[in-house]
């Protein structure tokens, strides 16, 4: 699956890890969607029942029209939440660290870092949910320039940093030999 998402993969390059945002954050966004659905249903059942004039004629058609637009909004919202989750991806290969960011519908960014150019990797777990579900951020500092890689809200950031540092050592040993 990751090969399709990362078309720049070299023939000798192996994909080790593919990470997305932790599922708890996706669940939170879906819960917001569920809340909006419940609000819509409450309006749909209670507002026309309270106002008799909204039950027939032109007002009824307008209410129906508003509710259909609201349903379309809910469908678009759910779809875009899934698209953002699916397209935000971090890939660690035998040679590179690739960060594919879909920041918005019209903002797509791909950053690559060769593992040997890495200088420092830090993991950070913060917040109640982060501590409970063990997700957080990974910061990778690159040598030579000020830019650094951020993997936000990834599962088990400590283990991820360990894997990245192991890969860095492996690559360094290969270059020394």
């Amino acid at each position, binding site marked *: 699956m990751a090969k*399709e*998402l990362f078309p720049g993969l070299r023939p000798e390059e192996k994909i080790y890890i593919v990470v997305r945002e932790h599922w708890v954050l996706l669940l939170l966004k879906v819960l917001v969607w569920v809340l909006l659905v419940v609000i819509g249903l409450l309006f749909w059942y209670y507002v026309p029942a309270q106002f008799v004039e909204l039950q027939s004629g*032109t007002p009824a058609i307008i209410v129906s029209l508003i509710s259909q637009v609201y349903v379309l909004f809910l*469908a*678009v919202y759910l779809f875009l939440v899934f*698209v953002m989750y699916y397209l935000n991806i971090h890939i660690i290969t035998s040679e590179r660290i690739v960060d594919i960011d879909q920041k918005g519908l019209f903002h797509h960014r791909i950053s690559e870092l060769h593992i040997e150019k890495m200088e420092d990797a830090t993991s950070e777990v913060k917040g109640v949910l982060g501590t409970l579900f063990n997700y957080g951020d990974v910061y990778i500092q690159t040598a030579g320039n000020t830019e650094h890689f951020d993997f936000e809200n990834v599962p088990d950031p400590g283990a991820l940093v360990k894997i990245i540092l192991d890969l860095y050592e492996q690559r360094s040993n290969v270059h020394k030999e």
Partner: protein
Amino acid sequence: MNFDHIIYIVTSTIFLGVTGILFFLSLFGVYIFVRYGRTTIITIPVSIVFVVIFITIFASAFQTLNSLS
């Protein structure tokens, strides 16, 4: 031009503006999803399901708007 006519024009203008934006976002979202997500076992079924949902709701809303005229 009577009152019902004015209501129809105002409602349809607002409706077309809002649904137009939502419809553009939905179809552009599908395009982005398939373009960057590539054609995989996840992207194709999800895209088809959502396109069918979007078009169904849009068509239904248009029918409702028609009944207003």
